[in-house]
Structure formats: C-alpha cells, structure tokens
C-alpha cells in the first residue's frame, strides 16, 4: 500500500537547519495521527486487552463474572465437544465459502480485466451494487428464491426433477449460498487487481513457446495472480468467520456457528468471561489462518508483497 509515495526522507545533508526540519516533520506526522489514535487506542486496542483479561475470570451462575486468574475457560472450550464443533463448523464454512467464491470469481475477474472493454464500468457497477445494498435486502431475496415453495423448488417441481421440495432455506446450503453471494465481490476485486498486473506479453511468450491455452493458464496466469488469490481467500475467510446475520437468518440452529454463539453466550447466558475466551480464541484462529497464508504466499511467490 502507498507504494508510490514519494517522500520526505529526512535531511539529505547533515546540518542544523535540516535536522530541525526533520524533527518538525516527525512531530507534524504524529500530530496528524492524534484523532485516529484517540479513537483506536481506548476503543479498539484497550477493549481487546479487556477481553484478554476477562477471559481468565470465571462466571458465577446468575451473577456477573468473578475476578480471578485461571485458565479454566480455555480448558473447557478447547476440550468440550460443543465448543469444538462451533470452531470446526465456522472454519469449515469459511474455507468452503472462500474456495467457492474463488472458483466462481476467477473467470469473472479475468473477463473483467482482459476482455470487458467498454463493458468494464458496467461490470464494476454490478460488483459494487450488492456491496451497497443492505444485507437484509439480499437475505429477503434469497428467502423468496430458496424457500420450500420458492423459485428454485417451483422450477424443480414444474420440470418434474423432484416431487417434494428440496430444503435449502434454513439449512447449511442456504446459508452458504447467501454467504457466497454476499462475499463474492470481496473476492473478485483483489483477483482483478492482481490479474491486471500481469503483463500480457508473458502470455504471448508462453504460447509462442508452444504452451497451449490451458497450460499457459495453469502455469503462468494462475501463479502470477497468486497474490490476489491469497488476499481474496484471506479476506473472505475473515469475514465469514465473523458473519452474524446469515447464520441466524438463512442457517439452521442444528449447525451452530461461532459468531452467533458468542453473542448468545454474552447476552442470553450473561457469561462474560466465557464469551471473552471464545472471542480471544476466535481472534487467534483468524490471525493463525491469515499468517499461515502469508507464509504460503512468501514460499510460492517470493516476488509478491503480502499484506
């Protein structure tokens, strides 16, 4: 980011005046950061520290949590099958949705960058529109399409493919469809970014050296767009893990997801210490996934800059 910043590096010649100017600039740089830091330190970093501290307390049934310094919450969450299933379900869905958006989004991104021509702005609008439409609107649309008496089932029954409705809404499948729809734009934008950076002459070189279209695609285009693929996967995995709305409105209580479970634990069950522990472990999972993907990227594409 901001790679092209052309900047005031400090003083080029040693001297009292330039040293003074350099210090002035350092001070001004921090002066500009005051508003952001006064918001982010007390309202973002400090609450994360509070969660970490509270995760070592314990919850007295029917009362607010008791100050302590024990690791019982961590032991319970990491060993109890119910909590393990929350993390397992969420990670499974996050990875699944990320892979689906990658498969669906890649050809779209490729077309957008390489062949769209004059239609490019139109396609960009098509990608941006779902982002500005309320998630509730999109959920409502999917309810009508995937319900037992909805569009898909009407079609299936009218064509005689099934004689009883296929349950999609309020099932894992309905939730996954809604998530793929909600997060597909987040995958397409970084993909398009990295595909746009590929020099078309490399592809010509590849084909003129005898590689067919599919070989060029598999061995040149995909490796060169790896930074976009990784960035898209990271983005989608992170947002699916924290999605609260779609599991509740399109999913099923038989397949519990992490974000709604944290809410229930904190608000319905009023177990602050336990919910704090779940939240801290959720952050750990997200950070672990993002870091390991950065590592993969550095191994596979050392020339690329990871974020």
């Amino acid at each position, binding site marked *: *980011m*901001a*790679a092209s*910043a052309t*900047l*005031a590096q*400090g003083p080029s010649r040693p001297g009292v005046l330039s040293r003074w100017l350099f210090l002035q*600039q*350092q001070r*001004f*740089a921090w002066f*500009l*950061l005051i*508003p*952001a830091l006064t*918001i*982010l330190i007390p*309202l*973002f970093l400090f609450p*994360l520290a*509070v*969660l970490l501290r509270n995760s070592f307390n314990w919850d007295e049934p029917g009362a607010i949590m008791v100050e302590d310094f024990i690791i019982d919450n961590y032991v319970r969450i990491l060993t109890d099958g119910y909590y393990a299933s929350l993390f397992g379900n969420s990670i499974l869905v996050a990875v699944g949705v990320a892979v689906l958006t990658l498969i*669906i989004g890649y*050809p779209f991104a490729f*077309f957008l960058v*390489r*062949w769209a021509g004059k239609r490019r702005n139109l396609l960009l609008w*098509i990608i941006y*529109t*779902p982002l*500005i*439409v*309320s*998630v*509730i*609107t*999109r959920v*409502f*649309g999917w309810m*009508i*399409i995937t319900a037992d*008496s909805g*569009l898909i089932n009407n079609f299936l029954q009218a064509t005689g493919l099934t004689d009883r409705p296929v349950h999609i809404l309020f099932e894992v499948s309905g939730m996954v469809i809604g998530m793929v*729809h909600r997060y597909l734009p987040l995958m397409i934008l970084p993909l398009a970014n990295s595909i746009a950076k590929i020099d078309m002459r490399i592809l010509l070189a590849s*084909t003129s050296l005898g590689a067919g*279209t599919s070989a060029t*695609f598999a061995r040149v285009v995909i490796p060169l767009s790896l930074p976009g693929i990784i960035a898209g996967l990271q983005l989608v995995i*992170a947002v699916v893990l*924290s999605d*609260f709305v779609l599991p*509740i*409105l399109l999913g099923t209580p038989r397949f519990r997801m992490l974000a709604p479970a944290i809410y229930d634990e*904190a*608000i319905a069950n009023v177990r602050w210490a336990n919910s*704090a522990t779940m*939240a801290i472990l959720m*952050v750990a999972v*997200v*950070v672990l996934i*993002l870091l390991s993907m950065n590592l993969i990227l550095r191994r596979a594409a050392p020339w690329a800059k990871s974020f």
Partner: protein
Amino acid sequence: MTRSGSPYLVAYVGLVTVFLLGPIVVAVILSFSSVSQLVFPPPGLSFEWYEVAWDNRKFVDGFVVSTIIATISSAMAGVAGTLAGISINNYRFFGRSAVQSLVIMPLIIPAVVIGLGLLQTLAPVGIRPGILAASLGHSIIGIPYVVYLVLAALSGYDIRLEHAAQSLGASRLRTFLDITFPAVRPGMIAGVAFAFLMSFDNVAMSIFLARGDPLPLRLMQHIQYYADPSVAAVSTMLVVISLVGLLLFGRMLRKRDVGNLA
C-alpha cells in the same frame, strides 16, 4: 490466449451477473406485491406494503437512529482516517509501520469481537448500549476504509508541491488547506460515504452496542417473526436512497475536481 473462449466466458459472466443481482431484483419486485405471502411472481401489484412500512413506527424510528449513528461514526472515521492517511503517505517517521498496521487492523479483527470487547469495556464505566456506544464502535470499522481510499487518492502525489509552497512563504496550515487537502478530498469523500454505508448496515457490532433500535436490527427481528413484503419495501427505499446518495457524492467529486483544475 485467443478470443475463441470468449462466447462461453460471456455467457458465464452473464450467469454470475444474474446470481449477483437476482436476489436484489426479486426483493424489489416483491415489495410491490398485493399479497402478504412471499410468492413470486406476485399475483398482483400494489403500494400496500410501502404504506404498511411507513406506518410501522419501529421502521421509521430505526431509520432515524441508524442515520444518527452512521452520521456521527462516519464523521469521526472521516477526520481520523483522512489525517492518518496523510501522515502515513507523506511522512517517514519512527513507528510508521506499526501505525499502518493499527489502522488496518479493525478489518481483520471480527466485528463481533470488537463489539463484545467494547461492551465489556464501556458498560463497567457506565456507558450503556445506545446511540453513543454504537457510534463510537462503528467509527472504528470506518477508519480502515477511509485510510485506504485516502492512500489511494494520494498515490502519485508529489510532496515537493508542499515544499514548494512552504519555501514560497506559505504557512503549514495554508499549505495543508491549499495543497494537501484538495489532493485527498476525493478519497476522503468516497471513504466517508463507504463508512456511512458500513455503519448503516452494521449488525455484528450493533447487537452488543445498541438497544435493538437501529434499522437493520429491527428488520432482522421482523423478518424472523413475520416475513412479509414490508421488509422488501423498506429495503427498496434504502436501495433508492443509497443510489441517490452515491450519485450525489459522485457529482460532488467531479465538480470539485473540475474546480481544482480550473
């Protein structure tokens, strides 16, 4: 890579377009339904559900509450994110990369976690869930977008313009107002617009920080208990409002930019 694959690819892009826009179009059409059941296509058309939505105090109040929260939080994110973006782009200083990570971090930390953390921080000091708590929380998730778009606007910006202005006798404030600010304005406006939309549509933080009164929470409760087309009517009005808002923002951008060139 020849163009021979194109027809299939065009068909595929068409399919993805239908997938992306289909549910939205379906919801908009259903808002004009004449019956309360969610049948598509609707048997008849009417404005009935717009009246129902308008008469529902919960929706109208929710709209007001969400607008207040989104205005306060996007203004906070706008000021903080714009100045931070300028600082990160224009200066090399000790701790710069740490600051850069900090302002992007709210994108990576799940909103549910930030919301829970703020609840457990604010409630003990007496700030109960409500408009204030929700505005503070939403400003955090707006900052990364503003910073990102300000940095994008500043890519290719030449800091020597500022040096030139100052060596010609302009004060730091004058330089900022006449040189720096016009350059970041497009990014700032786009960032604030985006932060506003993100706040207006936020659920994951509001469940902890508001008392169930922002519009998305109201719509969510409504959809869970009685899904009728009034939700679609509200949604359609929101779509119209955000499109009009974006067009206005877009126009504002272009006029100002043209003004700068002249």
